[in-house]
């Protein structure tokens, strides 16, 4: 007696499932889970007495972005305009998000609001923040 008689019926459900899985993988290959992600996505870097934040903000002019520093938080505020110069334009594809956004990031320590360095080039924002002089850890000399 054969182990399975699928061959006899002419349909192999496992083959069918593999084919479907392959098809799903192909369809999902280009999809990123950006919808659930907060905007803008950020990276955080820490130095000895400073912290650097990088953020991806494509399509936003430097003037349309507001950065606020308070205690140990950094807030991004801005607006992404839907761009069409023609009212009668027909949309083929619309994947880029638009609208206003706001995001607050907590930094690992309090930062000096006067010592902030922000650079914005090609849709990539780089903010460097420094720890205030008074908060810096001091090395204590031990007397022998």
């Amino acid at each position, binding site marked *: 007696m054969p182990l399975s008689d699928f061959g006899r019926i002419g349909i192999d459900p496992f083959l069918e499932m*593999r084919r479907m*899985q*392959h098809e799903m*993988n192909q369809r999902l*290959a*280009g999809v*990123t889970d*950006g919808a659930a*992600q*907060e905007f803008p*996505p*950020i*990276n*955080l*870097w*820490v*130095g*000895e007495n*400073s912290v*650097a934040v*990088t953020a*991806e*903000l*494509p*399509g*936003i*002019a*430097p003037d349309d972005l507001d950065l606020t520093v308070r205690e140990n938080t950094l807030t991004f505020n801005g607006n992404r305009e839907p*761009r*069409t110069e*023609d009212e*009668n*334009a*027909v*949309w*083929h*594809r*619309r*994947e*880029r998000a638009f609208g206003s956004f706001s995001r607050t990031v907590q930094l*690992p320590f309090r930062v000096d609001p006067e010592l902030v360095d922000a650079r914005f*080039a*090609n*849709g*990539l924002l780089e903010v460097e923040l420094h720890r205030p002089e008074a908060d810096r850890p001091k090395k204590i000399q031990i007397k022998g």
Partner: protein
Amino acid sequence: MAQELKTTERQVPSKLDGGERTRSRPVFVPRADIYETQDNIVLLVDMPGVVPEGVDITLEKRTLAIRGYAADQQHQTYRQIYTEFSAGDYERLFTLSEDIDRDGIEASQKNGVLRLVLPKAAPAKARKIQLKMA
């Protein structure tokens, strides 16, 4: 099953030429807006971190290929503690449905967004037909 899972984890061959990439960097599919006006098809592609010199656009037959190479983020003496995005390359292919005036294609890059204006070739433009009065 296990074998199949392994194959999906591997580096995906480049869609553009079918070969595997020699640079081991992540490749992203950039988000794009496409709209059509009376004379043009306009493409807006998000490629943050890509300098204008790092953009490579080719049109072969009806296939439009867009590639962007982003510079690595380098922070000496800094240590990364939190990551939501990583630097990588962008690759995306589009098949154009209408005849495009190849010589009239314009590309510009601003604030990390690539803007491509593809003018429609003359025969594809809509023609208004006048009714003759009987």
